């Protein structure tokens, strides 16, 4: 199949294949050819700990976007096994109602050893969905802990979903994912401890001095769709803010440099690994060995 031509003819199989190629590190030519067509989609990241309801929230957001006549691409990342390289990708289960909607394209991605909450090719998948013409691209990270913040570099709007009853007030004060939210969502808001979590997030936010956008706090019960319209409104306000202040350009540049950095790092890492394998097995201390291999790389 002539991939580029089929892509241009809006054949979903071409998009699916293009993402596979990007995952295998063979997507460069295609992304290069399609890059001029990107930059139109609104990109929204959805992150939070495992089991918080990210996929259920994603499904509810897709429903709202479809009701507004927007087409949606979803990239859902789940972890790969560090032992077998295999993965069980289960995010689709919550998205089943959208499987046969021609204006929705869902792709599960395994992290394939990549850290930070995304897969190495997630940025490419977002570019490809954007070029294919989806109005909204939703990116769902792996279930994260406290420090996986790559999504904030990639998405224009980052939603951090939290659930009640999972830690004391110090948890919301910690650095990391609590700092990247444009919108906080307290999901499972019917839980008896939901009010407490909302209070803790509010008091954490009051301690900080904000310039520009102040993160919004929305409560949802995603399974029943409660609060989802408020979440959509919060996202729309953030997107409007980005556009009015011109910050959208800064976010696009950030996403661009982030991807450039990732790609360059990947290539440097390959060279480093090759050089490390070729090192003599002598008893140098770790600092000396690092100096030696780096100076060799510069000379390469």
């Amino acid at each position: 199949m002539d991939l580029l031509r089929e892509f241009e003819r809006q054949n979903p199989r071409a998009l699916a294949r293009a993402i596979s190629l990007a995952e295998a590190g063979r997507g460069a030519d295609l992304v290069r050819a399609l890059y001029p067509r990107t930059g139109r989609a609104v990109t929204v990241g959805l992150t939070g700990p495992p089991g918080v309801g990210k996929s259920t929230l994603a499904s509810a957001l897709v429903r709202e976007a479809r009701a507004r006549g927007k087409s949606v691409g979803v990239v859902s990342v789940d972890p790969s096994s560090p032992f077998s390289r295999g993965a069980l990708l289960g995010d689709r289960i919550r998205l089943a109602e959208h499987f046969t909607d021609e204006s929705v394209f869902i792709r599960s991605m395994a992290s394939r050893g990549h850290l930070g909450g995304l897969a190495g090719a997630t940025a490419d998948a977002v570019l490809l969905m954007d070029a294919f013409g989806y109005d909204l691209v939703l990116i769902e990270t792996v279930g994260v802990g406290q420090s996986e913040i790559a999504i904030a570099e990639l998405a224009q709007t980052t939603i951090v979903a939290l659930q009640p009853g999972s830690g004391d007030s110090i948890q919301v004060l910690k650095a990391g994912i609590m700092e990247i939210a444009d919108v906080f969502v307290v999901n499972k808001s019917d839980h008896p401890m939901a009010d407490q979590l909302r209070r803790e997030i509010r008091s954490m936010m009051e301690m900080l001095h904000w310039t520009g956008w102040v993160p919004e706090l929305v409560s949802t019960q995603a399974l029943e769709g409660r609060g989802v319209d408020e979440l959509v409104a919060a996202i729309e306000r953030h997107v409007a803010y980005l556009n009015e202040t011109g910050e959208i350009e800064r976010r696009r540049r950030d996403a661009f440099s982030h991807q450039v950095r990732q790609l360059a790092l990947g290539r440097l890492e390959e060279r480093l690994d090759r050089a490390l394998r070729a090192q003599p097995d002598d008893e140098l201390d770790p600092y000396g060995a690092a100096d030696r291999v780096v100076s060799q790389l510069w000379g390469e």
Partner: protein
Amino acid sequence: MADRPLRIVIAKAGLDGHDRGAKVIARALRDAGMEVIYTGLFQTPEQIVQTAIQEDADGIGLSILSGAHMTLFPLVVEQLRGQDAADIVFFGGGTIPAEDAKRLKELGVREIFTPGAPLQEIIDFVERECGKRRALVG
């Protein structure tokens, strides 16, 4: 193509809530190094085939324990052909009598595994057949 793992959709179709077998297979394929996309329960043939297309899957494994196999398997085959996706290796499992399995294989289901099939036999089949497909499509 060893530069990316095989991708397999494991699905449950129709009014059949018994997913233990599907989960065991999903786990076994995962541990054999494949990326397994699990659809969840109660899928229609159309949903299963759309999933396989969007996920660029090399194979679809469908588990049916409800007795509706003579209806659901052929519908998936038909959908695959209709979507120009018959290159995707379609196999199945469940409580399926031998004569039905024979008929289904004539219709285009590549293999039917019944209760007691060794996991390794299923893994070997998927690696071999989906590997062949991968060699063709890249």
